[in-house]
């Protein structure tokens, strides 16, 4: 049986259907950030050895969104919708949303991460990508 692989394994793991994001935390000043890097802390200048992994829960609030109607990039098929999600764990991230258009989306919607199949690689494995989707109210 073919395996599932992450399109960007450095940014998230696919062990859960609602993946956390691989953020980083500066031990020296407490700054939490995404995307991850280990060059040094942007907030206080601490050295790489002061930067530790920080799992950021894949949930947050939709700050803003835009449906891209026109895109000239190779292999990028418009329309698709990009959102800015302020994670419950602090940082704001930009992500592709599962909905192709912005129909039904509102600023302030609760959002969570999901895995979306985006193709197969040369080994025949299913490549999945982290996207965000609207969390439907469950009362």
């Amino acid at each position, binding site marked *: 049986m073919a395996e599932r692989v992450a399109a960007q394994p450095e*940014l998230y793991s696919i062990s859960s259907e609602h993946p956390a994001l691989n953020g980083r935390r500066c031990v020296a000043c407490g700054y939490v950030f995404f995307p991850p890097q280990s060059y040094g802390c942007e907030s206080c200048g601490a050295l790489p050895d002061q930067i530790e992994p920080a799992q950021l829960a894949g949930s947050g609030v939709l700050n803003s969104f*835009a449906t891209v109607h026109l895109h000239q990039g190779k292999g990028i098929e418009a329309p*698709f919708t990009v959102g800015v999600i302020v994670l419950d764990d602090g940082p704001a991230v930009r992500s592709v949303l599962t909905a192709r258009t912005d129909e039904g989306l509102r600023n302030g919607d609760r959002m969570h991460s999901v895995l979306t199949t985006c193709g197969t690689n040369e080994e025949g494995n299913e490549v999945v990508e982290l996207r965000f989707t609207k969390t439907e109210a469950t009362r």
Partner: protein
Amino acid sequence: MKKTLREMRPVYVVGIGLHRYQRMSETSYVTLGLTAVREALKDANLEWRSVDSAYTGTALIGMAASRPMLRHLGATGIPMAQVENASASGSTAFRQACLDVASGIADVSLAVGVDKPGPVSSGPAKSNIRDLVGARAVPFTHFALLTNQYMNRYGVRIEDVAAVAVKNNRNGANNPYAQRQKAVTLDEVLAGPQISGALTRLQCCPVGEGAAAVIVASADAIDELGINRSRAVRVIASVTQTERVYRGAANFDAELTRATVAQAYKEAAITPADLDVVEVHDAFTIEELLYAEMLGLCKEGEGAAMVTSGATDIGGRCALSASGGLLAMGHPIGPTGAGQIAEITRQLRGEAGARQQPNARTGLAHMVGVGAVCVVHVLQNDN
């Protein structure tokens, strides 16, 4: 001890020249640049041999662009260098020319911005830090997201945001150097094609080719070289800052602009009420509103209402993007910041013809660039 530009030797803009901004053509960057520099020399009534140093603002031409262009004015052996600072390349080249004169290293210095569309070799892309969206979020989507954020936060309609494009294209129609020289209606702006989010084509600036040149000189040089003092415009602040860490979904271009402008106002000893003409980095309609608010021309959230009220039209309280701005005049990258200085100088001289803001005395030029950087200059006619 540190000094501001104003505490150093006075610097004056004495010559301006442009090659029209236009769609990419077969014209060499050398021809584009020389056209602008020769016009600036003529405007200042200066010989090339009087120029002591030269900076070329360019982001796309590539290595060693200056001398292959400027040698055709006569190889005088002066110091030359390229200045790359993304969209703010021309602004930063102008700053370097100002600093040469202010310090006394040069009496006369040239800043020329020149570019042609081409492949971009980008520092951020080479930093190997990948995010979730990658190439799927290009600049127009970055600003489409900010447009959505702004409209939601302040309850503003897209018609109000798009009004910026109507004003700026009306101004551009009177600017012979503008890439877009045609007035448009709000319906035409909104008609599309739709690019990203609520942004339509006419709410995004055209990126073509062109050149803009500015010559700055000291008071000594003005006297000794017989430059017309009454047409010289003083540079009273040159300030640049870079992005810091902002929390959550803060808009970094706006926050960076807020901080840079505050420093420029302090150094120039002016308030927003003193500004008669302002050119900002209006690559997208939303940006003019955000930066007008950060400049303190109105309260936050009131930018769209200010634009539709006519207060920022030519003849209004403060003419915003009288040149047509990036939206109509165009954004050929390297020239853009230098072109803003040319427009403000023309306005403060009272030589802007159909685009003239009455009694313009003080002007401000603002650019941001990928990285992110922000460059602000304040000019004043102290005659």
